[in-house]
């Protein structure tokens, strides 16, 4: 895709190319289906390249390939990976060991699994220095170790180094991994979604650290991620992958201001906008997996610009301007379209509505316990009819606990009152009257866990119908079809099993199951956290439409502040089991009062 030889004089000639990937091809073993094909990247000294993609894009496999490593089940089938001119893929095993951890290092996605649970972190840190022959003596290595730890803002005293990985927090573990990666002052660093499992605040710190260290040591960094917001603040250049190929690459500004590939533009349109100016627009459909990819452009079925030619042949690399490359037959037309047409102003009428409606849920001074500790302290909140209240907070803030208490799914001690239309709710859902159970429906976070894999979609949808209504067989089928229609799913899915559906479709089925009960209120517990950005946007679109059209009351739990304006009218910001700020969405987000809210706003990455 990018070629080192045609870098124009006006751009980054001053910096040398450190990493040059050409025509990288990775296939499944033994079927031979390609995961990645014809991937070419160039990264210069001190430059951060963001490799962006969603599920099945192949970006994760590219990451480890740069160190000539693949897990069981995949193998590198072609291409070159050159670091300072030397092809990594052609090296002898001894030479390869020399550069791994030395000239090129890797920061994994989940350090809780990548750090050896049986070894102290001091040992694991020291060994990367030892095996690359750093320093002439132990004292020198220890000094370097202290320096490494200071750079990532971790202590380096003996006590701390004697800890085992499980005795560190997630953020600390990730910093240890970063320290190890920078230890030998590598030329290239590959970061594989290192902040995915972290809280927004911790993520912000980690990103700062990465940025600082990359710049000070002039390291070429490849940052693999699905989160465009994160990458927009960190990367100098961006390469977008779809179905195993790089479909567009260029500087950050080039892509964000005027992307020339339909997928790039759509992806940008699906990023949650914290300012609330732009409505979320998702991309229908899903990305094809290895083995299912067509011979033409893989994005065709989901593309607004597709023509017949797209189906037949995959477009070649086109260089629009030095460094800005795209693979699309209609790139010029796509690029020419003004950015404004992609922006649909959000319907703001909802948040301005006066609160005359009844209170659906009223929470008064509720304290909830979890194994003798308080998970919620004295919470007071309310949800009105036809409104959506967002519960926002990081993990451990108590937002899910509160949602579960309201839903009757918190089987521990609860002190305080939770009322539903004025009547007290039993703590356990099973003890509630059927009408109440029917009126409050809960949508779970993980689409992989909330549907019984041994049941068909039809059987899953029929469960609430059987519990809450007395229906004939035909009536039941009618209602199931209606529920599917409401979530824009095809009726043929009734006989399929969950594993035959994509993540986004499964989540829609979960929503349909909730709707089938004909509820008054929906509780959505982080329902999009496990979905791709583009799929998330589509689901949020759906939920917002449902809430509006059906007059549902909704409780929307999320950790992503940026989503709030796209769906809610009121927001409660939670921290450590308390509500720190509570009010109308526009008021809270435009003019936050609480320190925590301000911090959360500043830490949330935005485009």
């Amino acid at each position: 895709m990018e070629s080192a030889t045609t870098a124009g004089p006006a751009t980054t000639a001053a910096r040398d190319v450190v990493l040059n990937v050409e025509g990288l091809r990775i296939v499944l073993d033994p079927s031979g289906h390609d995961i990645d094909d014809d991937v070419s990247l160039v990264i210069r000294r001190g430059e951060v390249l963001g490799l962006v993609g969603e599920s099945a894009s192949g970006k994760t496999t590219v990451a480890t390939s740069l160190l000539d490593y693949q897990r069981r089940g995949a193998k590198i089938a072609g291409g070159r990976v050159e670091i300072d001119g030397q092809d990594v893929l052609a090296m002898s095993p001894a030479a390869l060991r020399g550069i791994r951890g030395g000239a090129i290092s890797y920061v994994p996605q989940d350090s809780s699994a990548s750090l050896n649970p049986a070894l102290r972190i001091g040992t694991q840190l020291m060994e990367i220095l030892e095996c690359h022959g750093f320093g002439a003596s132990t004292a020198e290595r220890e000094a370097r170790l202290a320096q490494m730890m200071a750079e990532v803002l971790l202590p380096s005293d003996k006590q701390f180094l004697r800890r085992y990985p499980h005795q560190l927090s997630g953020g600390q573990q990730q910093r240890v991994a970063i320290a190890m990666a920078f230890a030998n002052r590598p030329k290239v660093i590959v970061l594989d979604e290192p902040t995915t499992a972290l809280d927004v605040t911790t993520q912000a710190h980690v990103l700062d650290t990465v940025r600082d260290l990359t710049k000070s040591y002039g390291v070429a960094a490849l940052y693999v991620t699905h989160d465009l917001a994160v990458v927009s603040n960190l990367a100098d250049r961006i390469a977008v992958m779809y179905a195993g190929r790089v479909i567009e690459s260029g500087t950050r500004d080039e892509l964000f201001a005027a992307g020339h590939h339909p997928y790039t533009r759509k992806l940008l349109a699906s990023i949650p906008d914290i300012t609330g100016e732009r409505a979320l627009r998702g991309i229908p459909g899903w990305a094809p997996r290895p083995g299912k990819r067509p011979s033409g452009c893989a994005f065709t079925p989901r593309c607004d610009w597709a023509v017949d030619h797209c189906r037949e042949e995959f477009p070649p690399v086109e260089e629009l301007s030095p460094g800005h490359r795209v693979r699309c037959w209609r790139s010029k037309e796509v690029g020419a379209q003004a950015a404004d047409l992609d922006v649909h102003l959000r319907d703001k009428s909802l948040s301005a509505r006066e609160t005359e409606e009844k209170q659906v849920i009223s929470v008064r001074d509720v304290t909830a316990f979890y194994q003798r500790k308080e998970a919620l302290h004295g919470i007071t909140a309310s949800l009105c009819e036809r409104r959506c209240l967002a519960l926002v907070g990081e993990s451990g803030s108590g937002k899910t606990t509160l949602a579960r208490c309201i839903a009757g799914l918190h089987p521990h001690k609860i002190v305080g009152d939770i009322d539903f239309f004025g009547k007290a709710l039993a703590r356990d859902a099973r003890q509630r009257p059927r009408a109440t159970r029917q009126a409050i429906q809960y949508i779970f976070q993980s689409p992989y866990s909330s549907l019984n894999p041994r049941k068909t979609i039809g059987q899953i949808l029929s469960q609430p119908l059987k519990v809450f209504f007395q229906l004939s067989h035909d009536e039941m089928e009618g209602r199931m079809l209606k529920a599917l229609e409401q979530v824009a799913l095809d009726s043929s899915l009734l006989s399929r099993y969950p594993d035959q559906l994509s993540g986004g479709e499964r989540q829609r089925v979960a929503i349909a199951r909730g709707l089938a009960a004909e509820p008054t209120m929906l509780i959505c517990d982080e329902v999009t956290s496990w979905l791709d950005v583009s799929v998330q946007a589509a689901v949020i679109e759906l939920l917002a439409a449902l809430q509006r059209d059906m007059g549902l009351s909704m409780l929307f739990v999320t950790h992503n502040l940026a989503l709030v304006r796209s769906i809610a009218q009121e927001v409660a910001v939670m921290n450590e089991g308390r509500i720190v700020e509570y009010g109308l969405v526009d008021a809270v987000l435009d003019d936050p009062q609480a320190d925590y809210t301000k911090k959360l706003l500043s830490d949330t990455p935005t485009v």
Partner: protein
Amino acid sequence: MNDEIIVNDSELVEPPVVHADRRPSEWLMTIREAWHMRRTKIGVAIFAFIVALAVVGPWIAPYSPTQFVAPPYASPAPPKMWLGSDYIGHDVLTRVFYGGRTVILLSLAATLIGLGLGVSLGLITGYARRWIDESIMRILDVVLAFPQIVLALLFVSILGPRLWLIVLMVGISHAPRIARVARAATLEVAQRDFVRAAEAFGVPRWKILFNEIMPSITSPLLVEFGLRLTYSIGLIAALSFLGFGMQPPAADWGLMINENRLGIIIQPWPVVVPVLLIGVLTIGTNLIADGLGRALIGIERDTGVG
């Protein structure tokens, strides 16, 4: 948080066919997948052959199992006596034909008893409140403290060698082992959100146990069944061998081995043939269990289920 990336980006997995035609239920798929493996086919062939031998045997046997056809330990003399005579003068071939039924029937019975008990206990302890779980598991630990054959012998010592007793005791000794597997599977399933969803609907606990949880644990239990059947055959044959199963003059493979041990040097056949048959049978059942086990791993990996 966005673990779809981790889960779906397991790009190394051959993806399932999305939106294809209907596909069968999981355990049917497991069986079908296992059938594709050579080892399973061999196992099934062996098992079928020996079961057929045991079932059909009595009809094609040349003599009656208690008939005296020759002096003791007479060497084979085809076509009259293909395998010679045993320690007392019966026809070995006839006794071989008659001797498989009890082993197979008793083993199946013991395995089913163990499975029934073990699965029920596993489901209950996996889904019930903590104290019920703990107390039942403690009791099962006590049963587990005895090697299976020792437990059977303990009760035989006081109640005598009765067939129903050894079937019961072998079954009971299987129960805790199966319960452990069932419990682990149940625990894993019980924490999934679709169970939570059913609870939120207000579905009663026992219904959840049957409709939501149990179908999800059938596959590992299928494998356990094969494994336990293998051990049952070994244990029941061993108990007969020790003299606590079928009593003379009944024809039983385990008993035959013991009866004819002393004459092994001059007339090995009444020992060798039953030994081979039992050995081959257990290999057959274990091959089936192993095939199912592998198929299960493969299917769970592909469908992301399990």
